[in-house]
């Protein structure tokens, strides 16, 4: 069983579209995160939720909206996609320790 799973693995879409990425963890962790890794391979945190509550919200355009229906799921919805949104998006989770477990990533390509 994959501990942190993201879907889809690849996402190709046109500018201006709205898309969602889903994340689920079966580790029983209370905290989940979204990271963005750009073409230069810098990995930056975007959001973090703890028990469905938004805790970290970095400087991210408000076209990005995370949603956590329960503590095992953290989805990322992106409105009006732009070329600069092309990146790999990683979901992660943690529990009471600065050790995070990452998903395999979703490669988003905006054309």
């Amino acid at each position: 069983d994959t501990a942190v799973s993201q879907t889809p693995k690849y996402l190709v879409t046109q500018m201006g579209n709205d898309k969602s990425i889903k994340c689920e963890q079966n580790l029983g962790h209370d905290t989940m995160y979204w990271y963005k890794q750009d073409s230069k391979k810098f990995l930056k945190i975007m959001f973090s939720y703890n028990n469905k509550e938004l805790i970290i919200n970095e400087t991210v355009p408000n076209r990005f909206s995370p949603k956590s229906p329960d503590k095992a799921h953290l989805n990322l919805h992106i409105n009006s996609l732009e070329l600069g949104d092309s990146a790999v998006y990683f979901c992660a989770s943690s529990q009471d320790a600065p050790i995070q477990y990452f998903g395999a990533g979703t490669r988003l390509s905006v054309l």
Partner: protein
Amino acid sequence: LAKTTQPISMDSYEGQEVNITCSHNNIATNDYITWYQQFPSQGPRFIIQGYKTKVTNEVASLFIPADRKSSTLSLPRVSLSDTAVYYCLVGLIPPPRFVYKIIFGKGTRLHILP
């Protein structure tokens, strides 16, 4: 959060021991040192974490001198499959609700040659 400096890239050969050093001159008293590994097309994977002296697990060893201003990740007898990017992270934000904000640097791209 303490800033870290590590080599951008390193090459080594199969069977060798590889040591990657990370500088963190501004490390705070409560900071831990954590290393992650990232293979191409995968998410980062936790390798090892330490506070001082030496920590060893089944994957690697972490050496931390007394002043804690640097740390060295040691990978014994590397293989081709150890080719990856290795990130050194320093910091531990006292969690209001156990949320840890990890800042990833540029990492060290390790290339193992046959």
